[in-house]
């Protein structure tokens, strides 16, 4: 993996593909997180809210993006993580997640994060603050 002490802006730090996020995953995430909003579980409710079918919890998408961090850095190095939910993630979509080096100061590196769905739409745009060492 690219060293945060020597990386240049734009360097790819990590990437992975989540695989399809199916209904079973939405049910398991609802149970594990306590987020039982029917928008993610009940197609009828989702239609009334204006969607074709249930949609993926924003926080499940963010959790999948966060695996880039936990799989590449010791847990105590993570200092901040934020995301903007830029698009709806339809059920059964996969997310292509990536982290690129953005900047650093004496203590932290800032990584630019994004998740792109199967149609190429950027659905999550975020940053992470990670201790350099």
């Amino acid at each position, binding site marked *: 993996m690219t060293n945060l002490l020597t990386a240049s802006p734009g360097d790819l730090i990590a990437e992975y593909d*989540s*695989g399809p996020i199916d209904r079973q*995953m939405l049910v*398991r*995430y609802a*149970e*594990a*997180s*306590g*987020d*039982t*909003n*029917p*928008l993610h579980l009940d197609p009828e*409710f989702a239609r*009334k*809210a*204006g969607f074709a079918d249930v949609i993926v*919890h*924003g*926080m*499940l998408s*963010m*959790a*999948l993006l*966060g*695996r880039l*961090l*936990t799989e590449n850095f010791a*847990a*105590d190095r*993570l*200092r*901040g*993580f*934020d*995301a*903007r*939910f830029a698009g*709806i993630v339809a059920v059964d979509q996969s997310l292509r997640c990536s982290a690129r080096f953005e900047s650093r100061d004496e203590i932290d590196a800032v990584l630019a994060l994004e998740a792109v769905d199967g149609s190429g739409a950027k659905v999550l745009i975020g940053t992470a603050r990670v201790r350099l060492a």
Partner: protein
Amino acid sequence: MAVDRARIGYALPAFDVVASAERIAQFAQAIGMSAAPDVAPPTFMKAVEGENNSSRRILDALAVDLKRVLHAEQQFDYLAPIRRGDVLRVQRTVTDIYERKNGQMEFIVIESSITRVDDGELAGRSRQIVLVRHPAPKVAA
């Protein structure tokens, strides 16, 4: 109907959540991690602060229709790791309500602090921005 701006400052009573080994393992499994970690995954704080349907209760208190709601943004600051067995105290407050696009989009900002009860150490902070979608008013032909 616009969200009542007088609700800025609304706070839920603080509540405690046990970050048990089982809960962390269940959460890790639900997000596709292969092994249960020693330290809770980065977004586990959202599950902690969401205990007892707390987000739903805040939206109910603000008289917001769940069908109009989407999660727009989420930020976390990490100050101390959450480990198996930690007892965490959650304090959630509505810190801002504002609109965009002539009121077609309203945003509710909910900030949380998550403190370890044992030693009083602040484990982290969370800032959630909720979007409330209002349809454009119908204009008579």
